Each structure stands twice: as structure tokens, then as C-alpha cells.
């Protein structure tokens, strides 16, 4: 998928493709609405192209990330707590539909 240079020209096809990447299926009404909203939003954020000397600005973070010591956490969810959270559970494993089941794509 080759996108329009800017989202100001974003087609409905491109919006649908973005949704596919995000694992979302849009209704026709949603596509219609987003094809109006999204270009306006991106036109707004494209102001960043006007920032002077942006190419000179350094990217490195101001603060270094602090790494956590490699110690075991003092809190864990018990097996029964995990079982309560998953919608389906079988043989001590969380059950999900098969990747290669009917109509599926990996």
C-alpha cells in the first residue's frame, strides 16, 4: 500500500488499510466520517513542518532511562486469579480460536 504523500489526500481505501493494520473493521458510516475528520487532523499536525531548524535538533533523550534491577517481582497473579480473567480456559491453558481455523489468516 503506497500512501498519499500527506493524509490531506487520504483515500477511503487508505483509511480502510490503516484500520486493517490496527485490527479494526470500519463500517461504511465510520469510513465516511473518518475520511472527513482524519485529513483535517493531519493538516493540523502538519504545522510541525514549519518549525525552524528542526533538522538540527538532537534526538537523544534528555534523561537516561533508569534500568530496573533484575529481581523477581514480589507480586504475582495466582493460577486461580488468572483463570478468572481469561474468557475461556482448558487443560490449564487459555483457550483461543485456532489461527488456521475456518476462514482464518495467519
Amino acid at each position, binding site marked *: 500500500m503506497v500512501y498519499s504523500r500527506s493524509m490531506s489526500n487520504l483515500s477511503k481505501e487508505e483509511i480502510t488499510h490503516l484500520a486493517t493494520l490496527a485490527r479494526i*473493521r470500519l463500517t461504511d458510516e465510520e469510513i465516511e466520517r473518518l475520511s472527513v475528520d482524519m485529513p*483535517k487532523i493531519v493538516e493540523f499536525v502538519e504545522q510541525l513542518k514549519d518549525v525552524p531548524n528542526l533538522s538540527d535538533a538532537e534526538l537523544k533523550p534528555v534523561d537516561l532511562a533508569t534500568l530496573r534491577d533484575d529481581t523477581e517481582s514480589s507480586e504475582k497473579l495466582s493460577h486461580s*486469579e488468572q483463570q478468572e480473567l481469561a474468557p475461556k480456559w482448558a487443560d490449564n491453558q487459555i483457550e483461543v480460536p*485456532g489461527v488456521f481455523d475456518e476462514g482464518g489468516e495467519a
Partner: protein
Amino acid sequence: MTDKYNAFLKIFDTPIQAKKDGKLAGMKLAIKDNILIEGQQATASSKILEGFIAPYDATVIKKLKEAGAIFVGKTNLDEFAMGSSTETSAYGTTINPWGENLVPGGSSGGSAAAVAADLCEASLGSDTGGSIRQPAAFCGITGLKPTYGTVSRYGLIALASSLDQIGPFARSAEDVEKVFSVISGKDEHDQTTVDYKYQPQEIDFKKLRVGLPKELWQLSMDPEITEATKKFVDYLEKKGATVKGISLPSIKYGLSAYYIIMPAEAMANLERFDGIRFQSSAEAKNLLDKYVNTRSNGFGTETKRRILLGTFVLSVGHFDDYYQAAVKVRQLIKREYEKAFEEVDVIVSATTPTLPFKIGEKVKDPVAMYQSDLLTVSVNLADLPGLSLPCGFSKSNLPIGAQIVGPAYHENVLLGIAKEYQKETDYHLRKPNE
């Protein structure tokens, strides 16, 4: 408790209190429904988390329980904290106690309205681009967005992990301070937290240097807000503070940078909602359909909009032009604030460019809605603390908030100023319908 404002998504039949003694013994708090209390719902005001029961306490909740606080319920918010009006909640909007057709602000609108309506003494919200400060201003109460890293995000349903912070609301800065001193500090579960211990500070106003950024003061905003905020600055000057104009040139790009960085991080954070782990799970014949059906049915319009925006700005061919550019602008903004704080101790502006607006007025125009965050987002981008406090009322009796921003880890200066101001004014004590 009668909640005619839809401030609460859940009022606990029996308020939760783990201990009877402690620093906050008996203080009634409401908790935004994106912060986990073990055994209670945590919906983030989304259908996709309907039925989800939190398996553990957020660190802030553990600390509040230890301090003797009482939790009265979970409050409404914009879905996944994406919004500035609480109108994107899947469970209906919250009404501002100051006007039945007005928004309370967002995304922490429920928490702000609950305090304003005296349904609790204090509440917790979260602030990613203004979601504590803006509703505090709209509801006529005090709200603090702490320095990034001073309050643990463990147990906060993530929106944008480099911007989110949990913070308190209350009528008074004194109560905000009490709650903040309990919830702040390093946490082993959140490696972005720092070794921080809150220490209150008396303010010597004669030594205080106040900066007014021209880029914020020259913005088009409601004239009554400008007037009330100027009166707050006059108060500081009369107390002996030195006031000067400063410049933060890149701050005008803050909103654009924010609406690139935040959706990018939000898109990544919301990938976890796949129908496998969080209770809500759509019927599907295969795994891919499970993901797609759950997410398509479970997310609301604004959430989908921001996910798509985040997907776009991180995609091949656009990453450099949008996301990388926004990160660079963020660094520029941060450095300009640091430079400004070499000359001034605090920076003051209005919190919002408008008075509380009508329900439905902006929800169909996302760009107009995003403008509500104009004065607040750069504080999150720069990881700084910001406090909103009531500084006046409009002729139509709507509250107005002023924002004080300080250097990192200087919440005590912001709260010190606010406490002194609130000894001499009563804006924070006024109640709707009085």
C-alpha cells in the same frame, strides 16, 4: 448518595476502607475508572472492558488504603482518557455541576464533577495532556498534574506511557497536597518513577519570580478568562513577586506534537485489547476475527480515530515526517522550559482558552475539541508539574482556572502558592447553586 451528574460509573454499596487510621483517615475519595481497585470494575469508560474486574490494586490505591482513605466509587471519563469533555464515554457523558447543559471537561470529568458536587472530598484523575487541569478549571476546583515519574502508573490503564500521570483533585490545595504526599514516591513496579519524597514549602513571595509566556498570553481566548488570570498575577505581584514576560517559542507547536506522540503511544498500548485477556470477547471462527470483532465492536469513535492516527504517523514513509519530527519538537519544548526556569521560578497562564462549553458543541469537530488542550499539553511534553486553581468567575457564574507550572519536582512551590492564595480568596469554596 444521589449522583444526578453521571459523575460515577459505580457507587460502592459499601465504601471501601482498608484501615481506620492513617494520614488520610476517613477522607472520602472517588477514583477515575482507569485506575485499578482490586475486585472492582475498571472499564476506562469503554465497552471493550465491560465486565472486567481488576485483579490487583494500583500502587496509588495501595498507598491510599494504607493511609486510611475511603473509596466511594469509580468515576466517569472519556473512553481510555481520550478526550476533553467526558463525552466519549461509552456510558454517557457527565454533566458539569455548574450548568446542566455544560461539559465538566475531560478526560477526568467524572472525578472533577464529583468533588465540585460535594459527592466526595477528593478524587484521583489522570493527566496526559491536561485531563486533570482542564476539568479542574471547568468545575471550579483545584487539580494537580505531578511531575512525570513522581507517581506510579502501575495499575493505571495506559493511554500514552511517556505522558500519563495520576494526580489529585480537591476543593483546596491543602487537600490536594495531603493526597499527593501519600500517592507519590518510587515504586518497584514502575521503573519510570523516581526517588521522590514530598516536602511542603512556605513561599517567600518577595523572592518569587513569575514568568508569563507571551506565546500563551497572546492567544485568542475568552476575555473574562484573561481578566481573571491577570488578577491572579496581580495578586502575586502585590505579595511581592517579580513578574516578567518570557518566551517559549516552540510551545505553539506543542499541540501538533502532542497529537502525534499521544496517538502513536496509545495505538501501541491499546493493541493489548484483543478479546483474549480482558473478559470482553466477541464471537469469532478464527483468531484474526476474534481480534477484529472484539476491537471493532468494543472501541468507540474517538478511540478508533486516534488508533488510526497513531498507526499512520508510525507507518513507513511517514515516521520521519510526523513521529520523529514530533519527538524533536518535544525536546525543543523541554529545553525552552528548562532555560526559562533559569530566570523564573514559576510560569503562569490561564488553564483553558474557553469557559466550559455546551454538551454536543465540539464533539463532532475533533480539531475544535483538541484546541481545549492548547494551554496544558506542553507541560506534559516537558514532564513538568502543573496545577490549576480557581481564580475567578465569569459574569454567567462559570468558574475560571489559572495554571501554575514549575520546574520538575517543585510541586511544593505550586501548592505553597496556591495554599496562600486560597487563604485570602474563596473561589475554591464556592459551590454550584449557592
